């Protein structure tokens, strides 16, 4: 397959759109945190120590009482210099805090995505090929249950089965070192992947069934193209764009899922950091993290968007106009 270059205009529009999106999001997150009731300074000082002087000192230190725009610009200025500020709660630099959590959550999400991809997509293909038969119904039902189970409940069940009863996997914690980490992350990753697998399963199944019904598949059969090649080169290739778009979208699900999963499995990742920071209204952290997560999601979307013309020639600019039959 000869791939034309990505259309430059398309890339520029998409990247520009992404930047605008991130800017709007950052303003929204910033505004939200300022509008919300409550006072992080008080939380910080606790029940005993909230003297007016101490409160004033804390507020001044975190710019909690400057006007909104000034705060935002100050923050944005910092961000552009890769300085996300310091956490109100721990005093550590926000970037370092997020950086420290990134590895674990990255591994968790990566593993979860891998599980979802490895189960969901082949499962979707299988059910599509066996559609309306027993296998299809069984797998679909399992998917339905997975989709309908809240992550924390699924996590509890898995812990009960595999940690307590079978003792195959540890119940909590991130583990130390590569192998141990992997061992610790199996259950959380599976928990995280449950609903996403179900989503991908549904999506793939629908896409493959849609492709199977296409005329060009029938035509390929009708001229004796081998079944295997039809499946791989015709059906799966056609299903690739919708599935890829779906994968881009489930990244958001996965990131959201980490909140619950990290809570259940006591994992110190970005999800539990967010919960903690929200509880304590650690404004710089919540802000940076919300934006960071949004950036990840938007980037995932951007990547899938940019990948589409590579896969589907119809989305590339035509080299010449339609020729006429001669």
């Amino acid at each position, binding site marked *: 397959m000869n791939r034309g270059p990505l259309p430059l205009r398309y890339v520029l529009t998409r990247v520009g759109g992404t930047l605008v999106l991130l800017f709007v999001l950052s303003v929204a997150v910033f505004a939200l945190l300022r509008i919300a*009731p*409550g*006072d*992080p*300074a*008080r*939380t*910080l*000082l*606790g*029940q*005993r*120590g*909230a*003297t007016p*002087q*101490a409160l004033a*000192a*804390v507020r001044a*230190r975190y710019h909690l009482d400057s006007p909104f725009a000034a705060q935002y610009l100050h923050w944005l200025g910092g961000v552009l210099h890769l300085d996300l500020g*310091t956490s109100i*709660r*721990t*005093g*550590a630099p926000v970037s*370092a*805090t997020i950086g*420290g959590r990134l590895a674990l959550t990255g591994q968790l999400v990566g593993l979860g995505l891998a599980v979802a991809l490895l189960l969901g997509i082949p499962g979707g293909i299988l059910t599509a090929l066996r559609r309306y038969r027993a296998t299809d119904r069984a797998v679909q039902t399992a998917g339905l249950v997975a989709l309908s189970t809240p992550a924390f409940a699924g996590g*509890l069940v898995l*812990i*009960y089965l595999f*940690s*307590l009863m079978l*003792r195959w996997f*540890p*119940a*909590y*914690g*991130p583990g130390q070192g590569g192998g141990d980490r992997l061992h610790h992350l199996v259950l959380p990753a599976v928990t995280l992947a449950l609903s996403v697998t179900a989503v991908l399963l549904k999506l793939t199944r629908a896409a493959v069934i849609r492709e199977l019904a296409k005329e060009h598949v029938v035509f390929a059969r009708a001229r004796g193209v081998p079944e295997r090649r039809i499946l791989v080169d015709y059906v799966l290739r056609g299903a690739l764009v919708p599935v890829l778009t779906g994968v881009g979208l489930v990244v958001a699900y996965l990131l959201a899922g980490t909140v619950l999963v990290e*809570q*259940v*499995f*006591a*994992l*110190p990742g970005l999800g*539990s*950091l967010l919960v*903690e920071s*929200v*509880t*304590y*209204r650690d404004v710089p952290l919540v802000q940076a993290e919300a934006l960071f997560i949004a950036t990840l999601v938007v980037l995932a979307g951007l990547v899938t968007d940019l990948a589409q013309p590579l896969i589907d020639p119809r989305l590339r600019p035509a080299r010449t106009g339609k020729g006429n039959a001669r």
Partner: protein
Amino acid sequence: APQPASDGGATGHRGAQGADVPVGELTFALPSSVSSLDVGRESGVLNYLVATLAQESLVSVSPAGKLEPGLATAWRQPDATTYVFTLRRGVVFTDGSPFTAADVVASIDEIRDPKNGSALAYAFAGVSSVKATGSHEVTIRLSAPDAAFIWNTSPGGLLISSEKFLAANRGKVGTEKTLLLGTGAYRITEFAADSHVRLESNPHWWGARPALRKLKLSFVPDAGTRLVAMKSGAVDGALGLAADETSGWASAADVTYTGDRSVVALAFDTAKAPWNDPHVRRAVAHAADREGMVKGILHGRAEVADALVAPEMWGDLLPAGQVRAGYAKITSYGFDLAAARAELAKSAHADGFTAELHYPSSGPQLGKAALALADSLKKIGITLRVKEITLEAWVAELGTGKQPLQFLWYFPVTGDPAELADPYLNASATATDIAHYDVTAVNKALDSAKADTDKARRAGKLMTAVRTAGDDLPYLPLWWGQTATALSKDIVLQQPGPFAFVGPWATRIRKAA
């Protein structure tokens, strides 16, 4: 020294005996996350559990609640506002540097510096100066007499680090990269925020080498996971369990319950209607089934409170018997809906009214109590709306006076009744007297107790204040809390008492005999 009251003390299955053999490494689960080790920064209860293993204070507190020498071998009080501490010699920080008076001064100054916004600042708010009056002597002067001040130099108010360390790491102490530096029984070797802390015993500690050589404290916020971890042997014990959580633990571990001196009470804003009407307060008191709450919600793992101050808080001021006798004289408002109705009828709000009560999400037992109260208040014509808010919002709300009915949920750090009586019953404590309770006799008693260095007289004055307030009902004490410690069957914690976790608790872990 006073012994812990029988019903507030340890109720473990076995005596706190243990074999004196070294224990390799143990893992304990803590019930929520810690993201900073610095107690001045994040003032949660759990930080103390970690920090007191690594850092010490001038004076220490025995498991029974007695003040004992710590980094100060002795202290004297030449006058009502001056304290002179003689420091222990030959002590080194875990980085090898020697411990001197300058370190004490630096540690206290760090807390007092308003720029740091330390959560411990309140403890030294009344201090006018801190000086090193010798290489191993520190003198602290107060601006006004405060008989309970000495408690602020215990781990509850002060944890000492080195001057050099503090200067070099301003604002970063307690993070993953900059661990705590102290002179304590253990040295922190690793900290992963919201995950775990690792410690190992400090070979240069001035005290006896603890049997437990290494330990890991894991933060496991989910109760179910915590229990599975225990059952599957991933942890050797869990500290700070909520009383209502322990029902599943009995089969997997030995669970010890100790009064933790904490109190849960309802605070009525006596300056605002309808709570300015004593009949209304009494009606609510009669409608609160406190026995039921303790039994049902807390599974009996708490004690119905007669007063704001838990009996253990009297420490060595007053023998337990006398505390109980004093409390017994406080008018008791038993659960009696008929009496509640009668009181309400006598009030200016005979037709009932609507009130709102918020509780922090981290205290589900408070929520349940609030619901139980709402249920019985409904029967006498009062509508109580219960709302859950975050701990942050709840703390922020406490001082603002916006809510006329509030929960008071307090974990004391000292063993002196003044810690509660002064801020909550004295009208001069404007920031904390959330009931706006202003009774001259009580104010006077508290003020003079502050300056009184005579134990017995001071105890008498404090008791008067507590009892008067008990009758006047600005606060309706609900229960004195207990904390549960679950340990696997092969280890024990010696001397589990209400002050067991104020000091280096891990030094008292032993193999079960």
